[in-house]
């Protein structure tokens, strides 16, 4: 439980500093990648938390797309990459943080 709390707080803090970017199907100028390496024994906890974050985004109507990838070959399989796109740095100014999303939801 302590590890899970640490995981949640740590992810929340980091994502608060560098939140998810906007993503569209059209070409985008920039691609934001949040690479999260999870302790092998805490994969289920992390994935449950990641689902809650995405659900919160849907509930508050966050317009951004987040594509989550998981390492498959040639690297850590406990590594996750949250990939989002944006066109202009100014977009970052209006992005809610993960803690804000969770509180609002």
């Amino acid at each position, binding site marked *: 439980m302590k*590890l899970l709390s*640490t*995981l949640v707080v*740590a*992810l929340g803090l*980091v994502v608060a*500093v*560098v939140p998810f*970017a906007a*993503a*569209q*199907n*059209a*070409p*985008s*100028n*920039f*691609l*934001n*990648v*949040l*690479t*999260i*390496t*999870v*302790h092998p024994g*805490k994969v289920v906890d*992390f*994935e449950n938390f*990641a*689902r809650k974050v*995405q659900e919160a*985004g*849907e509930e508050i*109507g*966050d*317009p*951004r*797309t*987040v*594509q*989550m*990838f*998981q*390492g*498959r*070959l*040639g*690297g850590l399989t*406990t590594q*996750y*990459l949250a*990939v989002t*796109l944006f066109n202009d740095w100014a977009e970052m100014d209006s992005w809610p943080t993960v803690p804000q999303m969770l509180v609002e939801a």
Partner: protein
Amino acid sequence: MVSIENTVGAFRPEFSGGSNAPALGQRYASVVTTEIDPAQVAAYELFQRSVKAAEDKAGVRRTRRTTANGPAFTYTAVFLYDSFAQRASVPGPPQLLTNEYGVERAQALMDGANRAVLSRTFAVIELRPDLSRTPN
């Protein structure tokens, strides 16, 4: 949690055959990350442009970026596909360069690029739709 790292990549259309946007629903992405010698940027980018030209003629779509925030002088190439069979059917840069420029010119381009490379990693990542979010 072991670590969290954030990077921002800038799309480089002059090196890319596709758009910067990951195609929603593509299952896999092959990601080649290359760190180059800052003194060899010109040679490496000549290689990148040559590969892009060969890919365009062959109809191969790889997108390429350089780091905007994160490790400097790092180039990333991404190829998206739905199956490993599909991946295996697409030629890589050495074959494409040879097809387009002939053996000697292709080898010269690859030699120039290899001299520029400090390190390179190849990885395959898999989309997790259950952990992803697309606005309605």
